């Protein structure tokens, strides 16, 4: 225990003495959390639509005004030829083309049905997806109104109908920030911990101080613990600042138990720091450690479910995600902060992360060789 006390004293001194790093580690995440959630906005408004109205009827006009007044769409092209509209898609000036065929109104009334064509610029996946969803929704509504007008109520009554009452839980206003903030905070905490830990031991190697440590009778696990604890504290500080930003700026207050949240983050930090230290023990230079950590960080972030959901991934990718600590943190952060999930709900994730923590730190201790 005494040894650990001296190690901690030393590590904390070094951290606090290096003001530049300390300031960056604290300030950078806060700034990013202030800015990035506003940029990471999938809330799809302003979908650019080009409409080709070949019918010029009162129905087609009504449909068009319904679309443009919905708030989702911006009319960027009107009554071009299909070729011209396609050009707009090519230049990224339109995301969707709606083509209303000639005879739309007549066919709808006389022949009881009419097709309508939507072309989606699928390069922009999300916009394409949601734009299509919104547009079909609007057309359906319009269809309902038309039907009400055309069908005598008596006859209409005989058809069956189902009222669908849909509700959005945990985020009734479908606020995208609410979704992104916990995820981005998770990434920031991971980066702070991971990068600092990865650089630390290897820095001692590069500078040469590790020699002086290795020739002392210090226990390997003491040394690793001495590295782990300061960054663990720092990680928790960054996390706390993040929660404060989330509360002050985005009005996000964890629905679930805050102690549970901290407990999970604490265990998680042990895991990610262990991973960083493990990389550190494998490397000879800081540059190398940084680069390797960067590689894993990139994979972790992209596959962590921050931007795209893990559910939709193919099986092999889902299997890979099982080994991605970041994906558990993002998931649990959203669960506790947004849904108020309890201890039992996150037990599986907590168990896995605890296992990661044990494996990574154990491996780091094993791989840190005092004797070559």
């Amino acid at each position, binding site marked *: 225990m005494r040894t650990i006390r001296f190690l901690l004293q030393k590590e904390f001194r070094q951290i606090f003495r290096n003001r530049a*790093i300390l300031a*960056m580690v604290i300030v*950078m995440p806060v700034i*990013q959390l202030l*800015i990035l959630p*506003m*940029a990471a*906005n*999938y*809330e799809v408004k302003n979908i650019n639509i080009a409409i080709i109205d070949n019918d010029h009827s009162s129905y087609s006009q009504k449909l068009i005004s319904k679309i443009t007044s919905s708030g989702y769409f911006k009319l960027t092209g009107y009554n071009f030829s299909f070729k011209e509209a396609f050009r707009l898609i090519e230049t990224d000036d339109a995301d969707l083309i709606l083509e209303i065929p000639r005879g739309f109104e007549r066919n709808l*009334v006389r022949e*009881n*049905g*009419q*097709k309508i*064509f*939507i*072309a989606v610029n*699928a*390069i*922009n*996946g999300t916009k394409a*997806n949601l734009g299509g*969803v919104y*547009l*079909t929704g609007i057309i*359906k509504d*319009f269809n309902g109104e*038309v*039907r009400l007008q055309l069908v005598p109520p008596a006859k209409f*009554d005989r058809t069956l*109908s*189902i*009222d*669908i*009452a*849909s*509700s*959005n*839980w945990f*985020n009734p206003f479908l606020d*995208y920030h*609410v979704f992104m903030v916990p995820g981005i905070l998770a990434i920031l905490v991971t980066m702070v911990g991971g*990068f600092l830990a990865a650089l630390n031991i290897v820095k001692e190697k590069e500078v040469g101080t590790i020699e002086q440590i290795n020739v002392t009778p210090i226990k390997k696990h003491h040394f690793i613990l001495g590295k782990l604890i300061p960054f663990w504290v720092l990680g928790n500080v960054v996390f706390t600042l993040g929660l404060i930003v989330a509360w002050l700026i985005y009005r996000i207050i964890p629905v679930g138990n805050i102690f549970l949240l901290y407990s999970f983050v604490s265990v998680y930090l042990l895991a990610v720091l262990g991973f960083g230290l493990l990389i550190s023990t494998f490397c000879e230079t*800081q*540059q*190398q450690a940084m680069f*390797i950590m960067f*590689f894993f*960080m*990139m994979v972790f972030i*992209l596959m962590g479910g921050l931007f*795209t*959901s893990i*559910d*939709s991934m*193919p099986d092999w990718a889902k299997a890979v995600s099982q080994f991605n600590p970041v994906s558990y943190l993002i998931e649990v952060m959203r*669960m506790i902060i947004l849904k*108020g999930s309890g201890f039992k*709900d996150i037990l599986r994730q907590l168990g896995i992360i605890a296992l990661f923590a044990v494996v990574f730190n154990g491996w780091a201790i094993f791989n840190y060789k005092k004797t070559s």
Partner: protein
Amino acid sequence: MNWPAAQNEAIKHLAMKQFSIFIKKEFTHVLRDRKTLLILFGMPVVQILIFGFALTNEVKNARIAILDQANDPASHQLITKIAASKYFETEQAVMNRRQMEDAFKRGSIRLAVIFPANFNNELLHQHNAGIQVIADASDPNNATTLTSYVTAIIQDYLAALNKTGQTPYRISPEIRMLYNPQLKGASNFVPGVMALVLMLVCVMMTAVSIVKEKETGTMEILLVSSFKPLLVIASKAVPYLMLSLVNVASILLLSVFVLDLPVNGNVFLLFAESTLFIITCLTLGIFISVKTSSQQVAMLISLMGMLLPTILFSGFMFPIENMPVALQLISNIIPAKWYYIIVKAIMIKGSGFNAIWKETLILSGITVFLLIVSLKSFKIRLS
């Protein structure tokens, strides 16, 4: 030939020779570090694979729960239809609302469909029944999409039920996906990955390798030699320029042969623009190295400070026009944004230089600006 000219010639010749010696030294440094090299060349490959085959914006296989309080023919028919959809996986059969809530909190379902008791009866005799659809809107887009899918299935069912097979006066939208029907978006992410990889690799590697020389004191030695400071810096950048061009080539090869995404425009133009972008990134790295004095600071700035902003502001994951105006302005100073536009134009649209001269000009401007600022503060440090 007069004498001073010959002397000048000799000095120039010497400088060139020194320059090539220094570049060789840098190359040896880079090539000796196998782990870094592996990552350097492996990274673009892994990223292309992840983006190409793992990530998708499409929503499918969403786990949902069905709370069937009716347990009658109509509800059974609808449940079978929902279960058959590729969008949903109905593993969960929940018994009551309590269980459903738990399932949401556990994160094991994304959506729940609730059939009221007497669903069949109400539908057939009162001609109208209700269904409750609850979505986990902690992921808002997912919730919207899933709700609309379920609604569509219910309406299809209803249409089939209404004897004629169709509700009267029905408008049926036909959706066609242009470019890539699977919504894979390769044409979107390949340029994005190029921008991301080049940006981070070039910036970090140059910044760190220069700061490292400062930290270990070898920079002093280089600077007191007859070598021009600019050449010292340039010799550090050249190896990374070349390695990055190899990366560009490997990404393009992968894109053409693995993702079937051809380069529609001129390949030489693409390489020329990539070289420009790489130089921009290298100067950014130099700029960071001039302003910092420890490797760790340089690394944290070039990675932690730039990883997420580059992903977000280059526009390849999130449309820039959706951002608040202030952020749209910020995105203008991110070089990756301009390069992303350029690559997309050349690769996908097959555009020529006349379509991208503006972006090219902006990138060049950023490069020149960074270079001037770095050289200025470099000189200040020396004196």
